[in-house]
């Protein structure tokens, strides 16, 4: 199964090359561009900043996500993506640290060749890291699908998504390194990074297929978190080199 070559020459469980650049935008408090080959998303974070009126919450920061499609108007799909992004980021943003403030997260789709939601979640996570606000951890998103022949695929392209029987965007927490992620549900047998933060499915599949998608996605999310950590550490090292001794 793993050897079945795909149209772009990848194996079934191979991810596309990842690239991540931080701090591209001058005015934004944090920004990042994340690309998975031809899928590319630019994310910017403004905040914590003051907001006015009804939206102000004395207990926590108000988070808004604005999803800008590559072209056309914002429709139901974009609204749904905004909601999924906001709720997923709720898992890592410690909103109670910044009461009475607001945070705007803007996602601009640059190009879409499948796995768009996963790419956007990874981009906003990177942008949040760039902002420098405290986070309770990192999350990694991956898209996983099952084609007509019943083979599992990772990181689907647009054409593969259209042909697939079903595909799903999965988000897992990063394995905590130094800090302890406080979760009330820490079970005795499963580590934190096995918990599923977000799952958005499209198409129908059997329950067993979904569970195998979960296993595969979990393994892939480790690779993605590893990448985002390395790229984060590299950029930190770059800063260290610049600072005069």
């Amino acid at each position, binding site marked *: 199964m793993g050897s079945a070559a795909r149209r772009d020459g990848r194996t079934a469980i191979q991810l596309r090359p990842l690239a991540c650049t931080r701090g591209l935008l001058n005015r934004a408090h944090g920004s990042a561009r994340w690309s998975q080959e031809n899928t590319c998303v630019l994310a910017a974070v403004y905040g914590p900043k003051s907001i006015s009126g009804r939206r102000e919450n004395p207990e926590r920061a108000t988070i808004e996500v604005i999803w800008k499609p590559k072209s056309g108007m914002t429709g139901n*799909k974009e609204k749904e993506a905004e909601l999924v992004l906001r709720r997923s980021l709720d898992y890592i943003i410690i909103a109670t640290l910044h009461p009475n403030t607001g945070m705007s997260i803007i996602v601009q789709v640059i190009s879409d060749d499948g796995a768009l939601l996963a790419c956007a979640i990874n981009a906003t996570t990177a942008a949040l890291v760039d902002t420098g606000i405290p986070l309770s951890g990192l999350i990694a998103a991956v898209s996983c699908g099952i084609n007509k022949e019943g083979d599992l695929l990772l990181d689907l392209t647009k054409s593969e998504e259209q042909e697939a029987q079903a595909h799903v965007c999965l988000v897992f927490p990063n394995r905590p390194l130094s800090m302890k992620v406080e979760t009330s549900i820490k079970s005795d047998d499963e580590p934190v990074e096995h918990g599923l933060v977000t*799952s*958005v499915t499209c198409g129908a599949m059997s329950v067993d297929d*979904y569970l195998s998608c979960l296993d595969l996605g979990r393994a892939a999310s480790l690779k993605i978190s590893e990448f985002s950590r390395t790229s984060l550490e590299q950029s930190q090292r770059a800063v260290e080199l610049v600072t005069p001794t």
Partner: protein
Amino acid sequence: MAASGDGGADMEVEAFRRLYPARFYQRYLDAAVRPDARLLNRARSTSISLGPVPTADGSALVKVGNTTMLAGVKLEVMTPSSEGPDLGQVVVEFHMPPICSPQSRPGRPAEAACTITEQLTNALKSSELVDLHELSIAPGKAAWMAYLDIYCLDADGSLLDAALLASVSALAHLQIPSVAMTEEGTVIPALPETGISNHLSNDKHLQQPTVSEQRRLKLGAIPWSLTCALYKKHVLADPTAEEETVLHTILTVIIDSSGRLVAFYKPGGSIPATTNIIQECISLAKRRSKELQRSLDEAITQYESET
């Protein structure tokens, strides 16, 4: 009520519920019951009635606890697109009018309404409930466009479950009228074959064979949905609006009648779902699907015995 530094030792229950909703729920849930006396894994009682809107081609009113949904299907004739000359179309829209909850305001549809519309469209498409070939009248010339509108009348949590049940029931109630096609290619309602009104109607119309008889829409695998809220290691089935605001982490499982997973929709939240929780949610959804199937079957038998 044990005093635990919340100053609530001699507070009235209703006041405690409003002031400390999280703590109020915590006390119930730790004892594995809910304020409305349900067990954690029990859904609210559900009722379906078919055909409440006589002007619609298919309609249903669904109540899940207090959550009330009215769904209607209206058929219109359209010219099919060139990519699918023998395909009809189903357009879903979910409305949250200001009457349904204090949060919804008139004007542009709220984010929640857009999301549920998207979820419903996705569930109907993924489960292949409606075979779009069924909605064809004459390939390349005419097909049915079905507008499925769901109105939320009372939003008391688990909106997607009730909306999907209402959609499915309205489609199960849908009668496709019998139509004929004239030589010019326009679709007209077929005349009843009584022969009495012959002289009144145009002869040309009578010569036209009826292209489609009045019929029920054949449904494929029916999607059944169950929303769950997560609290610590517990799974609460079918949460109310109050439970949804207190517990934050909500997920929806949609299973179709052949046992396939149509959607596992978990939009984030503060509690990640472990494999055990995922499996528990799926098995709860399977059990719920049998209950809902029974309710719908009963509603159909009742409706048929009345007409």
